[in-house]
């Protein structure tokens, strides 16, 4: 049991009522794990945000993960070139759902200063992956990144997690379950010595 000295024994024992949606969304939004994904100048700003003075941990988003498989948020911080774009797409596909993308800086949002003659610069990362939040600036100030993060939290807060399936989805799920059951029936049972 975690003790909280300030709050301890101040309240009577009680129960909080909420919806499952709200509960799940609250959990999600208060522990967004971003991916360590520095591309260019903006990444330095992202590093500064993670460090002591600005302290991204206050928003529960300070746990930078090095692998896409553990992260919820991809902060595309910097200029995306064509050579990199293909990798970014793959990294995005490796992230588990629910996943979010923040385009940090004008480069990632729209090409920025490299729009006109940048033959090798992708004009906005939204050309290859869906983007949730755009943060303008070159580079955006740390406060702007916070703003983007808060906006993203707001977005997550209003997501619907539980809902009724549409007839189409239902039919797809039914179909897969049926197939799976058929498959399992076909399997030959394990040899005797391995059976538990």
């Amino acid at each position, binding site marked *: 049991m975690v003790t909280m000295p300030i709050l301890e024994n101040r309240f009577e024992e009680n129960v909080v009522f909420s919806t499952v949606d709200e509960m799940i969304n609250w959990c999600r939004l208060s522990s967004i794990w971003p991916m360590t994904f520095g591309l260019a100048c903006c990444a330095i700003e992202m590093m500064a945000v993670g460090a002591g003075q600005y302290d991204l941990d206050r928003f529960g988003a300070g746990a930078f993960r090095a692998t896409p498989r553990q992260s919820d948020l991809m902060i595309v911080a910097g200029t995306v070139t*064509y*050579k990199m*774009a*293909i990798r970014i797409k793959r990294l995005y596909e490796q992230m588990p759902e629910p996943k979010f993308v923040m385009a940090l800086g004008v480069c990632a949002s729209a090409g920025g200063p490299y729009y006109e*003659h940048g*033959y*090798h610069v*992708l*004009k906005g990362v939204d*050309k*290859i992956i869906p983007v949730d939040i755009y943060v303008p600036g070159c580079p955006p100030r740390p406060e702007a990144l916070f703003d983007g993060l808060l906006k993203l939290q707001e977005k997550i807060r209003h997501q619907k997690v539980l809902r009724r399936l549409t007839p189409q989805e239902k039919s797809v799920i039914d179909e897969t379950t049926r197939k799976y059951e058929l498959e399992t029936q076909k399997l030959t049972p394990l040899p005797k010595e391995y059976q538990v």
Partner: protein
Amino acid sequence: MQIQELFEALKKKFGDQVLELATPASGEPSVTVSAQAVQEVALFCREDSSLEFDQLMCLSGVDYPPEHLAVVYHLHSSTKHHRLVLKAMVPRQEPKLPTVSRVWRTANWHEREAYDLFGIVFTGHANLRRILLPQDWVGYPLRKDYVFPTEYRGIKCHD
């Protein structure tokens, strides 16, 4: 050594291969050598005891349409404290000249970059592939007549 003396020294050794000494109104003078002799000249510059150019500071390609491409070598000697600008002109149709990557190792990547952005072919280079752009890129972007791509692997380049 002054540039004039350097020029004389090169001229004495290589004769006709050393073409001219250009002294523009502002900026640095440069020595133009014939493209085919670049490797020998470079080796001489590095090895000769009175020149001792141990550092290749920079290697750049330049485009002079409609006829020429140029390769510019900036040399510096850290023992003798003098510098030299070597230039070699190659025709735009067939831009080929010998590599200097065996003379100064640092030239390896610089030459690959010149190949990547200008399409200058350095014969004898061990690994002449594109270095900055993807391998399947079309064209040489820093040439003056480069046309920007409209699409790369299915990604549209401009809206």
